[in-house]
């Protein structure tokens, strides 16, 4: 695992092309299935260009991997779904424009749960990604390819998207750092929508500093996303090794039934480490946490049923044999979507349909208000909240995939954050039986600076982030 600083030194002494070629080789010989598409020619050509012309950008010559639901001009973008077979976007997402301006080299598109609907990267049409810490286990999801690629040293930096935990969960399972920013901080222009009121693009790296550097590049206002927020911030400057006086709230509701004993112990040890460094603990109560999971899934599925209506085989992707209008679209969608996507579209349609709208969709939106209020109240006393990212370490491939509800339950600690739209960062904080454990540091709206500082201070005073999976 190499940091941006280390790679910069190597690029100055040698070349970006050499580094990109090295990573390409690692991807080529990998058993993780972290990538759907490797942009080999493009990446090498871009690296060469940067070597010969020079580039002043903060990521000049550094390879970055992109989750396959983020549009990349000229590079296949599939959302890990059969329905987007052969789709090559004619434009770049805002974050891709930003990366290119900063000199980054797009090395490929990473594997994910189909349309980002999952917690394990097992629903991909292109087969599951494996966790480098134990290849019989899942990397988490839905941005599992991005996290596994960073953990397996196949790329130093990656982008994912987080609708209900899809950056933080795989960061936790793969032992890397992952950030879900405040809703609106990063433009969603070019992110293929799943649940638009919940999702944000987020960065992955092996250190908090690298996450902040990547975040600085991709954050910022974009008129093409009407929910984009106009705020200029320098996140890297927030990185100070200092938590003295920081007030940490620890919501006991996040250590509920089903939380692994070692996860609970490890996260508490991390909290005590921060206390030893000068932070203090304050009491917080978040009584509606228990209902977040249901509210989240109802809202996400409802939004998905609407967002995924665009996939009909007319403008892009799979087209089956033509029949009449309705039958053709129904058959294209039946042939193109996988089981989990179909189930979510059906349940979302149900929750929005006449007779059930108020019972499910409207009720979930009201519960969302109560969850948001829990956060507002907690942040009156606390500067940050700390909780486990996931209730347990990575589970085995196949263990939960046949029981959707048990898979949904794994998201219990991550979904409330998306409902409230607040930022949260997952950092490695220990191990259980050689599997990484992540803790999340949750902040107030637009207060990424404080969660980054907390995570950075923890990292500077511990060495969990320096451990690497054997053989990678």
């Amino acid at each position, binding site marked *: 695992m190499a940091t941006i600083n280390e790679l910069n030194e190597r690029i100055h002494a040698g070349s970006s092309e050499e580094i990109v070629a090295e990573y390409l080789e690692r991807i080529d010989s990998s058993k993780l299935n972290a990538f759907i598409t490797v942009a080999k020619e493009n990446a090498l050509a871009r690296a060469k260009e940067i070597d010969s012309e020079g580039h002043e950008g903060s990521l000049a010559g550094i390879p970055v991997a992109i989750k396959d639901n983020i549009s990349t001009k000229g590079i296949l973008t599939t959302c890990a779904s059969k329905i987007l077979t*052969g*789709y*090559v976007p*004619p*434009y770049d997402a805002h974050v891709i424009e930003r990366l290119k301006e900063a000199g980054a080299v797009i090395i490929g598109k990473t594997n994910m749960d189909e349309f980002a609907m999952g917690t394990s990267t097992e629903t991909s049409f292109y087969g599951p990604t494996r966790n480098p810490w134990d290849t019989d286990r899942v990397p988490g999801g839905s941005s599992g390819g991005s996290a596994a690629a960073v953990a397996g040293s196949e790329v130093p930096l990656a982008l994912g998207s987080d609708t209900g935990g899809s950056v933080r969960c795989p960061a936790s399972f793969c032992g890397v750092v992952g950030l879900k920013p405040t*809703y609106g901080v990063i433009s969603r*222009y070019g992110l293929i929508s799943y649940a638009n009121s919940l999702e944000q693009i987020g960065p992955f790296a092996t250190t908090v500093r690298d996450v902040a550097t990547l975040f600085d590049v991709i954050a910022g206002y974009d*008129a*093409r996303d*009407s*929910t984009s*927020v106009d705020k200029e911030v320098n996140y890297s400057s927030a990185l100070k090794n200092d938590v003295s006086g920081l007030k940490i709230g620890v919501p006991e509701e996040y250590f509920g039934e089903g939380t692994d004993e070692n996860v609970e112990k490890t996260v508490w040890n991390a909290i005590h480490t921060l206390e030893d460094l000068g932070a203090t603990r304050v009491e917080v109560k978040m009584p*509606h946490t*228990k*209902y977040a999971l*249901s*509210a989240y899934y*109802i809202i996400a599925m409802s939004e998905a049923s609407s967002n995924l*209506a665009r996939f*009909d*085989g*007319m*403008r*892009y*992707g799979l*087209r089956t044999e*033509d*029949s*009449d*209008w*309705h*039958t053709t*679209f*129904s*058959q294209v*969608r*039946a042939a193109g*979507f996988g*089981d989990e996507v*179909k*189930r979510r*579209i*059906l*349940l979302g*349609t*149900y929750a929005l*349909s006449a007779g059930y709208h108020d019972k499910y969709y*409207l*009720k*979930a*939106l*009201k*519960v969302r*208000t*109560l969850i*948001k209020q829990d956060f507002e109240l907690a942040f009156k006393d606390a500067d940050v909240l700390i909780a486990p990212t996931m209730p347990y370490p990575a589970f085995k491939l196949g263990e939960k995939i046949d029981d*959707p509800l048990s898979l*949904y339950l794994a998201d219990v600690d991550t979904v409330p954050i998306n409902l409230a*739209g607040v930022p949260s960062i997952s950092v490695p904080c220990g191990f259980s039986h050689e599997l990484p454990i992540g803790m999340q540091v949750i902040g107030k*709206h637009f207060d990424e600076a404080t969660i980054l500082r907390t995570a950075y201070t923890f990292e500077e005073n511990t060495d969990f982030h320096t451990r690497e999976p054997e053989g990678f």
Partner: protein
Amino acid sequence: MIAKKDLEHMGWLARLELSEEDKEKYTPKLNSVLDYFGELDEVDTEGVEPTYHILPMNNVFREDEVNVPAKPLTQEEALSNAPKKQDGFFKAPRMM
């Protein structure tokens, strides 16, 4: 409880053809999720406003001009991924 005929109706509304096998397979799984969602009935939401968006949403206006804020795709770009096209148009299936 979702019955088979409800599922068929959802499939129609969502333009998603379901095989007999799909219906058999999905019904118990969807019902176990819906059962779980039933826990929301416990929450007192009397007088609580729904939250559609987490941040205040303002209407965003723009000048009525081409290229603002995004440069539109050319016809060729827009059609570049179409599985079926004819004379510069997307080719749709017949209506009836």
